[in-house]
């Protein structure tokens, strides 16, 4: 490759920012195309997401899910694996959380139950990721294709279970019974009420703290442990990892299991928190949004938190926007998400040569002046 290297701040700061701006610019054109004003839309979105307490609550609640799925994608990415299966892993993980909560909710309150729920969810999510991982590592089938297939299998399995097994007797809609009140995670409103602060009601619950803890743990894992080193080495150069004595197959399986377990934590936020029950399709695309979040956040926990906040705001702001402007629906957020994946993922290298040229021009001029 060329010896032109950009300083880190341009590589991880400026370039992703320009890519996101490009994605938003094209989104603006889409809004123009359907005959609305992009500026007005942005205004509605920002007030919807941050303008009042309830909106902020919803924004953070959505962000919580995206942090989990974003971390899941990122951990796999560091090992060079593309986990498209976050959606299925989160879905099955939620089943684990739900089953554990439903079997223990009459015996213990939420604070005693949460370690069991996390363990069950993580185990289910990891198990759902284990099969594609094993097949990739030991049987040579590509993890992208198998995780796509596993998303569909998970969806079929959950429909079957909800319609035939978990359905609350005497009801028609395919959802499980509600978990006992004492076993449901306290909402942020309750937490703040303990300190005498009154905040607006929203589905935001203490799973947000779990998400932040997960960020720290992932950061520690990837950059401060032996396993993390092995993961990053495989992603960087698998051959080199083999020669340096890393058991790449085992590491790939472990990485995917961690990834699946992280995705499954969506189940804590949704099943044990916001919804209080297992219901159809409760993941609602968070697994795919995780891919956008991870790409935008450059697979780093800090970046993922920022990107999750942005996407949480987009989801909440999008809901508000569709309320204010009838010709726009929340599907616009899906468009923006697609564009972010396009520009931050697939076209991430597009503007790099231009930036490099500009940078060289600017700094070469400076250096020659020094000489």
């Amino acid at each position, binding site marked *: 490759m060329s010896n032109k290297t950009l300083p880190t701040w341009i590589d991880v700061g400026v370039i992703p920012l320009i890519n996101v701006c490009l994605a938003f610019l094209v989104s603006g054109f*889409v809004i123009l*195309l*359907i*005959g609305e004003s992009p500026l007005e839309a942005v205004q509605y979105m920002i007030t919807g997401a941050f303008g009042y307490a309830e909106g902020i609550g919803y924004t953070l609640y959505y962000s919580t899910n995206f942090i989990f799925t974003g971390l899941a994608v990122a951990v796999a990415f560091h090992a060079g694996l*593309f986990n*498209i299966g976050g959606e299925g892993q989160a879905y099955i993980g939620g089943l684990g959380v739900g089953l554990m909560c439903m079997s223990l909710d009459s015996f213990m309150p939420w604070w005693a139950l949460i370690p069991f729920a996390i363990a069950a969810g993580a185990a289910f999510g990891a198990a759902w990721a284990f*099969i*594609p991982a094993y*097949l990739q590592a030991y*049987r*040579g*089938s*590509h993890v*992208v*294709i*198998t995780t*796509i*297939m*596993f998303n*569909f*299998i998970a969806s*079929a*399995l959950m*429909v*079957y279970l909800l*319609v*035939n097994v978990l359905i609350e007797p005497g009801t028609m809609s395919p959802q499980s019974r509600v978990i006992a009140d004492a076993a449901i995670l306290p909402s942020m409103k309750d937490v703040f009420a303990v300190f005498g602060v009154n905040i607006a009601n929203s589905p935001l619950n203490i799973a947000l703290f779990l998400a932040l803890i997960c960020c720290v743990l992932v950061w520690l894992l990837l950059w401060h442990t032996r396993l993390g080193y092995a993961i990053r080495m495989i992603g960087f150069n698998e051959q080199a990892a083999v020669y340096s004595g890393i058991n790449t197959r085992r590491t790939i399986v472990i990485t995917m299991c961690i990834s699946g377990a992280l995705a499954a934590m969506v189940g804590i936020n949704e099943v044990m928190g916001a919804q209080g029950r297992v219901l159809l399709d409760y993941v609602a695309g968070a697994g*795919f949004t995780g*891919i956008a979040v991870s*790409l935008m956040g450059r697979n780093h926990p800090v970046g993922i938190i920022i990107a999750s906040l942005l996407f949480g705001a987009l989801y909440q702001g999008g809901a508000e926007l569709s309320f204010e402007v009838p*010709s*726009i*629906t929340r*599907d*616009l*957020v*899906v*468009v*923006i*998400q*697609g*564009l972010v*994946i*396009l520009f931050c*993922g*697939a*076209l*991430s*290298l*597009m503007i790099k040569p231009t930036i490099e040229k500009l940078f060289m021009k600017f700094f070469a001029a400076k250096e020659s002046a020094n000489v």
Partner: protein
Amino acid sequence: MSDFMLIAISTLDATIRVSTPLILCAMAGLFSERSGIVDIGLEGKMLAGAFAAAAMAAVTGSAWMGLGAAIGVSICMALLHGFACITHKGNQVVSGLAINILASGLTVTLGIAWFHQGGQTPLLSGDARFFSIDLPGALAVADVPVLGAIYTQLISGHNALVYIAFVTVPVTWWLVYQTRFGLRLRAVGENPQAVDTAGISVFWLRYRAVICAGILCGIAGAYLSIAQNASFIREMSAGKGYIALAALIFGKWRPKTALLACLLFGFLEALTVRLEGVPLPLIGEVPAQLMQATPYILTVVLLAGFIGKAIAPKAIGIPYSKER
């Protein structure tokens, strides 16, 4: 005619109707993947094509204009994929995913803005749709036992796009295995350096491959919205693009076997509808969800190397850069 015969023919008839978009998309994927470009964007291109077809047919009242619009839009999506993966060497899976998500959002957003029907397009009738065609002599032979019924009810009486889909398979085979373009296409998916050394443009070959994929996905989309159904409905591709991808892999990236895989998966879907709530001897009632998941399970099992071995084109997923 016996009851069994009737049921068999109607199930097979349904199989053909369900398999049509799968066949078109699988052939689309074949062009792209044999040239070394992973195409998980089949779903998105088909969905965008379906919307374009229904929208154009609703405005102009012509099914053929709809088909043209579907192909046009689908080619644009394919070129976007090519621009990201071939020109800018982006990640092909990420790009395909972006196209799928983009299509799923854009079709509904534009549909609501243009037609104000919650993302649907207006119901089409008359010339705005492809209607079934009676093949010559279908009525004359209808009374011939067995063969007559098969000809009249199974082979005759589909719309033009169904026949186009089935013609696509031998055409794809001929293009990929019997022409110079096909030889180069296969070569560029296995060893692009060699093709480049021979003085043939890797980029242009791959662009042509993704354009072929775009055309076929567009036809598949038009089939969904203006032939099989009478309007565009949100998310109407419903994972068919992924099933087609699975069929392509299950068919080991070859036209004939991919066709058989599409028919198998289509048959499973047709059977799911027929077996809904019907207990089978010995095994009892089969859950519909199990039948729906079967194509995916079969593909995973195949990929794991338990039934034969599916070997992907060697250079698949790797962007080609000239200077190394």
